[in-house]
């Protein structure tokens, strides 16, 4: 009995040890068998790699690995500058602004894939571009139709036609057949002028169309892939882009390999480009820090993509990502609160990080956090009159944004001074939106002037409406029930008490929050917005009257004809034409003034990211609008392997102690058992 037990125990122990060693060995060797392998992490799988359905950042970036659009952004130019990608040139826009003629490149091939005859990718033509527009418009699951809604002649009618044709069909096969039929119908506003030229006819001038053509929603897909893979095309990408998907192991990893047929003309910029950058904009900056352009020298003129392979591991927990980063298995990492103090102190890297050769990037992102008041609310909205206005304004004065960013975000934010991000040319250095300044004394003054009675002292005040005897309260809806929301609730309560307002902050699950925000049933909301393209219009449209409706973008339900009129003009002005930019800035300032008077919005902050990079990783210059930047990503796999091995120390002592402990206990146990026997 004893011998049998012992033998079994030894066998099991041996098996586990063998497996363990094998696995560890595998981890150590890794699969970096190519010179340039980039290793990144994601906190979740992308929802899809179908660009026409990709509505979130992760999905868009993954789609951007395989698909391309007619336009995207220049690699390093700041502010972001449009360049043709699948188009041969920038669009020729007619005088009335309603016709965009676009010449296409004639050297673009789709990736080799079994959906094509013989598995060989064919040339992209105008038909593919028009097909992609139509597919997106006709797709019932796309979340991106808004980029062309009401803009292209006949496209709305086409979409509803597609819906009538396809909506009622439940049988997948029949649906696929009908889809083919629908996709082959012409749309008046999408015209093919030649094999490599198209014309887009618009219902009204739409300056932002070119920006929208940089978004994944208007990426070019071949008809064959859609028809071959059907719904599964979302995980079988076939584009013209720099990478082909090797595998997508759900929940574990996405692995992309270089597309061997990527067009040879796509090369990393050369010396001339960098000289021009130096001359025109004095180099390149990531946040406030100038980038050392010499690090790009080895890549000048090199065929894109730079990386032979890019791996995205799915690591949901930030601790796992952090440890993997420290071990050298991941190239880049943006620390969260838990890791922040270990990596960054006093806005700089800790000595431990510096010793590892890690460098830090800090930059602002076009993602804004703000508060809106529901102007349809009887107490705090328009109907509330001057008193409501005073409460809104006092609230804006009570928020110490710097303090919030410092205490709760570890500095990962920049106080918003106007609705336009600092990265945009429309940003006005000389202007500060009145409702973005911390001044609790002024807030109390405003309330007093409006007739409220204030009692208290220091940071604890209580405002009461003498007419009703009720305290002044605001009910704020927060999106999410996480610690971040809890922090925000605490901050709001503390802040509001400095002006005498009682804050009732409700943490809601995200769907519930959206329901109330878009249904207009809340009193005020803690909202956020990720800008889609570098045009201030994308921000200013959030307050226009026609969006003040259920499920509209204007959650403040603010309506002001003067604001709307100025918006109409702003949306037609370009930022890259100096005269127009001046007018645009002036109008935006006036629009802020209109908002300042009524105060439907209170600005909080723009997000700021801290990114840690290993020394073997080529520095990336962030551009949140460009989802096709990975073709410029590079890492020195050899250096990573060597360094990670150096860092990996496997001390024998703990293992020995544990083994002795286990053996002693085991022996004791066996001794007792044997003695009992």
């Amino acid at each position, binding site marked *: 009995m004893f011998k049998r037990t012992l033998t079994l125990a030894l066998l099991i122990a041996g098996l*586990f040890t063998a*497996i*363990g060693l094998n*696995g*560890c060995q*595998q*981890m150590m060797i890794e699969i970096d068998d190519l010179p340039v392998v980039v290793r990144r992490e994601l906190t*979740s799988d992308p*929802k*899809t790699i179908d660009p026409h*359905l990709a*509505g979130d950042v992760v999905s868009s970036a993954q789609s951007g690995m395989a698909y391309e659009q007619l336009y995207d952004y220049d690699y390093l130019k700041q502010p972001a500058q449009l360049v043709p990608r699948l188009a041969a040139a920038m669009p020729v826009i007619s005088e009335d602004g309603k016709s965009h003629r676009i010449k296409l490149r004639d050297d673009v091939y789709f990736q080799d894939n079994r959906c094509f005859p013989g598995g060989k990718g064919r040339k992209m033509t105008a038909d593919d571009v028009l097909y992609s527009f139509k597919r997106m418009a006709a797709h*019932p*699951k796309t*979340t*991106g139709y*808004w980029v062309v809604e009401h803009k292209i*002649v006949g496209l*709305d*009618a086409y979409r509803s036609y597609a*819906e009538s*044709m396809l909506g*009622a069909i439940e049988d997948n096969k029949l649906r696929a057949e*009908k889809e083919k039929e629908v996709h*082959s*119908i*012409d*749309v*008046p506003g999408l015209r093919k002028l030649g094999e490599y030229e198209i014309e887009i006819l618009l219902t009204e001038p739409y300056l932002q169309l070119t920006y929208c053509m940089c978004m994944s929603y208007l990426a070019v897909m071949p008809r064959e892939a859609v028809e071959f893979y059907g719904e599964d095309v979302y995980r079988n990408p076939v584009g013209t882009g720099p990478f082909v998907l090797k595998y997508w192991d*759900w*929940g*574990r990893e996405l692995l992309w390999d270089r597309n061997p047929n990527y067009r040879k003309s796509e090369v990393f910029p050369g010396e001339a480009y960098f000289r021009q950058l130096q001359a025109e904009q004095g180099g390149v900056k990531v946040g406030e820090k100038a980038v050392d352009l010499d690090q790009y020298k080895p890549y000048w003129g090199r065929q894109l993509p730079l990386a032979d392979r890019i791996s995205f*591991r*799915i*690591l*949901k927990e930030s*601790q*796992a990502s952090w*440890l*993997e980063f*420290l*071990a050298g*298995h991941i190239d880049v990492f943006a620390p969260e609160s838990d890791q922040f103090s270990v990596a960054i102190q006093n806005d700089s890297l800790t000595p431990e990080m510096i010793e590892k050769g890690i460098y830090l990037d800090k930059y602002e992102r076009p993602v804004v956090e703000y508060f809106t008041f529901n102007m349809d609310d009887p107490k705090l909205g328009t109907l509330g009159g001057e008193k409501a206005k005073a409460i809104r304004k006092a609230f804006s004065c009570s928020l110490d944004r710097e303090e919030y960013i410092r205490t709760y975000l570890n500095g990962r934010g920049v106080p918003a001074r106007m609705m336009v991000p600092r990265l945009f040319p429309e940003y006005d250095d000389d202007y500060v939106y009145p409702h973005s300044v911390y001044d609790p004394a002024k807030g109390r003054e405003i309330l007093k002037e409006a007739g409220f009675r204030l009692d208290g002292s220091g940071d604890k005040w209580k405002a009461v409406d003498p007419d009703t005897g009720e305290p002044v309260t605001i009910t704020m809806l927060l999106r999410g029930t996480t610690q971040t929301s809890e922090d925000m609730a605490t901050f709001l309560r503390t802040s509001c008490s400095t002006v005498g307002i009682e804050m009732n902050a409700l943490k809601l*699950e995200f*769907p*519930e929050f*959206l*329901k109330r925000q*878009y249904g207009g049933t809340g009193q005020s909301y803690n909202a956020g917005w990720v800008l*889609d393209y570098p045009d201030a219009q994308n921000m200013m449209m959030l307050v226009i009257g026609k969006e003040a409706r259920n*499920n*509209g*973008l204007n959650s403040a339900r603010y309506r002001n004809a003067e604001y709307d009129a100025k918006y109409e003009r702003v949306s037609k002005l370009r930022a890259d034409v100096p005269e127009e930019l001046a007018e645009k800035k002036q109008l935006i300032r006036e629009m802020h003034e209109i908002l300042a008077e009524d105060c439907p919005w209170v600005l909080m902050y723009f997000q700021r990211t801290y990114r840690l990079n290993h020394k073997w990783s080529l520095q990336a210059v962030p551009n949140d609008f460009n989802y096709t930047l990975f073709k410029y990503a590079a890492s020195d796999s050899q250096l990573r392997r060597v360094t990670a091995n150096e860092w990996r*120390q*496997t*001390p024998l002592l*703990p293992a020995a102690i544990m083994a002795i402990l286990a053996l002693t206990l085991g022996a004791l146990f066996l001794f*007792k058992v044997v003695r*009992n*026997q």
Partner: protein
Amino acid sequence: MWTYIARRLLYAVPILIGVLFLTFLLFFAISSPEDLARSQLQKGANNDSIARWMRDQGYATYTASGLEKLAKAPELERLSKAQSERGEDARQLTADSEGLRKAHGPTEAALAPAKLVEVKRLLGALGTLDAAKEATAALGKIEGRLTQANTLPVLEPLVAALEAVEPRTPVIEGTLAAVASLRAALPDAKLAGRLELIDTLPEVKKAKEADAASEAVAAPFEAMKAEAKKAADALGEKIKAVSGDKEKKIDPDLVAKARLEAELARTKAEYAKKIAPLSDAATEAALAAQLAWLDADRAKLAAMREAAPDFTDADGVQDPVFATLLAELEARRGVAHGGKTLAEYDYAVARAEHDAHLLQGQVQGLIITAEDTQRHGLIRLFVTYVRDLFTFNFGQNNAQRPVSEVLLSGMGPSLKLMIPAFLLTEIIAVTLALFAALYRGTRIDRSLVVMSVFLMSFSSIAMTMFIQKVVAADWGYFPIAGYASGLPGYAFLILPMFIYVIISLGTQMRFNRILMLDEIGQDYVRTARAKGLGQNAILFRHVLRNTLIPLITRWAVVIPNLYLGSLVLESFFGIPGLGGITVQAIAIRDVNTIRALVFIGTIIYILATLLADVLYAVVDPRVKLK
């Protein structure tokens, strides 16, 4: 025993239905599909996209709003009105186009005689490149005549006439080019046996392509009509199946309330009617073709008029024919008919009919739904809900991935982690508990109790973070995170398994120790000892066997949860199991995934308790399953 198992399985049905009813109420009372749609669509959310999303996700039959708006009269009224309007539109348009058709009719009649038809075809032959397909047909028809004549004299006067026309329009140029090609192809003017060459003429080829294109333009109209008719027919059948007169049940008050909405809908329909023909490419293409054809006709007529004396004399064509052709031309141009061409009318009629059919379908569908909802209400919706689950039709998750696929892919890693971890924990916990019970009150027992309390006191998250940091990251004994399939994949699972054992061991050991202590104090143990049995025999053969019943009961509760994995371990170690999927599904209210998880969980739980009952009988001879 089999009877018992069968009876237990039967009992499972009401339990399952009860659980499903609870989840059903939870999903449709607390969180409506509209809310889910909104959270999914985010920036793309508007009324249309929400409706589309819900329909696409299969929520149409479950909608809470469908329940609360049980009396769908306003919607019904609106749709009925829209339907009758579009029907009226179709009738009006058909009537409008009648005049046009009448004008067209005599033309055909007048051109009926074979000779005149040939003349018309001949004109086609002399027509534009666009009409060259007609030329092919015409030439085919006059094959006999031309073969007899063996020459092309019949063309000569027309060619001469065309050559005289100034200025030379593209149409005339094209015509002359076509004739030149014919001549080149037929040098001897001998046509017999060589007519097939006509098909190879570039002009004819081009014409054929043009013709195919024009057919493509017409195809969608037909498809639209057929599709709409099919949909309407299918719904008609449904209606018949359900019942007769439903409209009577509509609440007149609600109808009155809907008037405003109907008015808006009408305005919208009128607007759509205005822009529809303009915005549709097919109409534009048809119009362009029509106009090109008309230009060609006009050129032909002009040319023929120039050559009228010779031509009429030679072929006996009289003025009335020209008059008829002119009438047709005018008719086609639609001068007398509000500027509409036949193609426009055809399209507008098709579109109106299509709309009317679809609307009719919607109205009928709505009547059925309202009727059914009124009749069966919640129960009917619930039946659909249950049917879907029992047929394993779990639908898609919020990321459009089939739920069954998601669950299958996640279940593997979860079980791979949890089953060995669970077995290992139980083996160690039972062994240590036996040991503790045996040495009850000694230092060994006390040390084990202290150890288990120590392990129980630790937070599982803190323990996981600590061990991962120290053992995997700092010491490098195991991979930090990751997963791989196959045997080598276990390398990634050893550390999480180890942590699972440590986290669970304290509780399990304490629980087992108490069971063992209960048993070890029993009379039969004393008897066994008195009989002189060794400690090991007493412990493993008697005590352990008797503690198996409460152990099995506990395992029956724990085992069903194993398939759900461990959220903490899976998240920290990047294992793509069901733990993360479950939490994510709850966080984003992925209804389809949650209900499938609940359903499968319930089934496994029922089976596990059944298995436990069977095992009772196996381990304890006193238990009989009846």
